[in-house]
């Protein structure tokens, strides 16, 4: 009787505790220990990977150059452009600046002069409208001499102070949170009336670069695939002692500095370089017809294909090695020509490796920086070179972050597509 009821209730241990609770208690200790083991890695990843990415994404939609000054030494924070921002709040977008607006700026300029933030504010406005920075620095220098009527005083300084584009730019900069950097990253601007328009043809840059990055990365991925497939097949089928030797050649690039590899490509490719000399020397090319292989897209493609080749070879090798030769033999004995046996039997079994290699090479190529910078010239630079320029050259970190954010989103979409089409479980990295 008791045995029957016991079977219907939840199971209990010998001393009457519920079995599930007992199991949880028994496992908790080992789970805790497992967690302690991975905790250092978790902290490391959070600090060095997740946090910077979040910080970067935040920077791409947040820039308080117009609204807040922090002193480098005392860390004292001063709100900037308070009066102008109030005027913006009280007047809707598109309102022509009146005397009150100019008076507000004049008051704000005094603060800027005091905390020496004229350059900072000017730079921020400059992101939205070029030539604004110099107007601000000049106005800050003369801030104390400005007297009512302020509109006329500003016209005296520079006619451009009445430019509606400047006022639209200041209005955009007035809120720290903005999507304008993402707009800029796809060659759009906000017009004075608030609508979104394309930038002038001659200043559009990023869409073309994104497109070029995409096309060149696809081309590089395809080229590495074409080159790596036979190499990986050879590696997988040769007797071990030969394949080990060949593997060293494949891995050799990993052991030399990236910079060394890229510069050696420069030695090979330049118009007075080894390759051109050989072509001219052997009479294939006339001396005056030396081919331009560097400082253009050809240079970027050649050098990056070489540098990324191992990332394609290794996943391919790892799927090819375990494929038993008897599959192809079976196909042949069943009447398939060697081409059919390859196409129908061997190739489909290597698809997970192709997917992994292609994904790896493509993602690396999309973000590649040093090689295109050195051998790409103006024609062969990729989007990452622009990101680097905004990081170190123009110091427009928010735009750099927006460009990087777009790249990240693009790659995530690709990854999602890959999962949808091939299935991430099928990924074989080695």
């Amino acid at each position, binding site marked *: 009787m008791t045995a029957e009821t016991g079977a219907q209730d939840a199971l209990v241990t010998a001393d009457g505790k519920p079995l599930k609770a007992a199991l949880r208690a028994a496992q908790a200790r080992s789970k805790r220990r497992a967690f302690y083991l991975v905790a250092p890695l978790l902290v490391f990843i959070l600090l060095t990977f997740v946090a910077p990415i979040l910080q970067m994404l935040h920077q791409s939609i947040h820039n308080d150059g117009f609204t807040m000054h922090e002193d480098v030494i005392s860390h004292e924070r001063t709100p900037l452009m308070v009066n102008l921002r109030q005027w913006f709040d009280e007047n809707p977008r598109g309102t022509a600046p009146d005397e009150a607006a100019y008076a507000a700026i004049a008051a704000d300029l005094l603060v800027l002069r005091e905390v020496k933030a004229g350059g900072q504010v000017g730079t921020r406005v400059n992101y939205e409208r070029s030539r604004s920075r110099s107007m601000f620095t000049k106005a800050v220098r003369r801030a104390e001499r400005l007297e009512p009527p302020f509109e006329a005083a500003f016209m005296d300084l520079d006619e451009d102070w009445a430019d509606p584009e400047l006022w639209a730019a200041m209005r955009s900069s007035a809120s720290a949170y903005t999507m304008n950097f993402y707009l800029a990253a796809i060659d759009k601007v906000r017009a004075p009336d608030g609508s979104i328009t394309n930038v002038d043809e001659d200043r559009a840059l990023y869409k073309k670069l994104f497109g070029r990055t995409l096309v060149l990365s696809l081309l590089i991925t395809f080229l590495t695939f074409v080159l790596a497939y036979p190499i990986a097949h050879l590696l997988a089928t040769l007797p071990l002692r030969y394949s080990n030797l060949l593997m060293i050649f494949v891995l050799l690039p990993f052991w030399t500095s990236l910079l060394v590899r890229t510069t050696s490509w420069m030695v090979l490719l330049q118009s007075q370089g080894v390759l051109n000399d050989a072509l001219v020397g052997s009479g294939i090319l006339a001396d005056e017809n030396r081919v331009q292989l560097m400082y253009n897209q050809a240079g970027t493609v050649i050098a990056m294909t070489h540098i990324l080749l191992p990332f394609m070879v290794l996943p391919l090798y790892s799927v090819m090695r375990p494929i038993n030769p008897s599959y192809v*033999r*079976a196909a*042949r*004995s*069943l*009447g398939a020509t060697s081409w059919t046996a390859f196409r129908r039997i061997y190739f489909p079994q290597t698809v997970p490796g192709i997917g992994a290699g292609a994904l790896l090479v493509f993602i690396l190529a999309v973000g590649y920086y040093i090689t295109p910078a050195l051998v790409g010239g103006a024609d062969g630079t990729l989007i990452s070179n622009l990101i680097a320029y905004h990081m170190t050259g123009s110091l427009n970190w928010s735009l750099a972050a927006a460009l990087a954010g777009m790249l990240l989103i693009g790659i995530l979409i690709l990854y999602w597509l890959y999962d949808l089409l091939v299935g991430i479980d099928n990924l074989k990295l080695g």
Partner: protein
Amino acid sequence: MTDNGQAEAFVEFDRVQKSYDGEVLVVKDLNLSMPKGEFLTMLGPSGSGKTTCLMMLAGFETATHGEIRLNGQEINNIPPHKRGIGMVFQNYALFPHMTVNENLAFPLEVRGMGKSEREAAVKRALDMVQMGEFGNRRPAQLSGGQQQRIALARALVFQPELVLMDEPLGALDKQLREHMQFEITRLAHELGITTVYVTHDQTEALTMSDRVAVFNDGRIQQLAPPDQLYEQPDNSFVAQFIGENNTLDGVVSEIGNGTALVKLSDGSVIDATPVNVSHAGEQTRVSIRPERVEFDMSRLPEGAHTLKAEVKEFVYMGDIFRTRLSVAGNDDFIVKTRNAADQVRLTPGQTVEIGWKPEDCRALDAD
């Protein structure tokens, strides 16, 4: 084509030799001729060249010397896919990315057979191996025995006249293996296919084959039907390799009239049938099957020689008794007796007299 027996041979190896590295001959002077419909097994220890022979026949290895003929036509230079030979591999080699149906349809597809015809043929082949319900599964979703059946069905589905099997049952457990042995021979005979079967398991070879070719060291040591192989081995390797076997070393002291007397190392003399010996004074190794040794001297012919033996071990095995004796310096002399009502059970330490009919004891090469 002449009508002189040559025409009857379906598969022929003619003085075939094979070397992989130019230094060692893996197959040495292989001559073999199979009529249509025969089930022939290549039996031999690992490394004796069986797979190599099969691969040459299938077209995956080229013969270094000699001719291989199929149906009277030389096939040395015909690529594998044009030979029309079905093949079952040891690891089955079922294509992992295809379903069972697709696996079976593959040979028909590459032959350009129409879809409906193909489906009917696949269905027939699956039913033949009792796997009709499994057409939509992947190979990985099948057990070893089921995969084996599919591999068999795939090798037969395009109706080849010749099927090669390389240790196809090696990965199965004993019971399944025995069942599949029966299935394979049944199918081969029903369909009238010529089969070359490779194994290193002598029981498998004996129970399945019309003829067995015993391989060793790249040569066929003996090619004969199973009973002849067991009862009349041509040399000591075959005697030793097939079934259980007792050997005694000695010197031929008298020979003639189809019998010989052999003097053993301890001086005693036994009767034997000369096989690989021709004159007195020759070194020889005699071979006697454990079940042909007699304890009852009244069953031996008049004047037969007998030996004294000491019982070392007696094992009761149910249907038989297995007695280990020490005979003329050989401590591993095994005698098997049926568990009949009147059979004596010996005890270790006991001394007994043993003997055999001269035709059961074969004087072979000394090795």
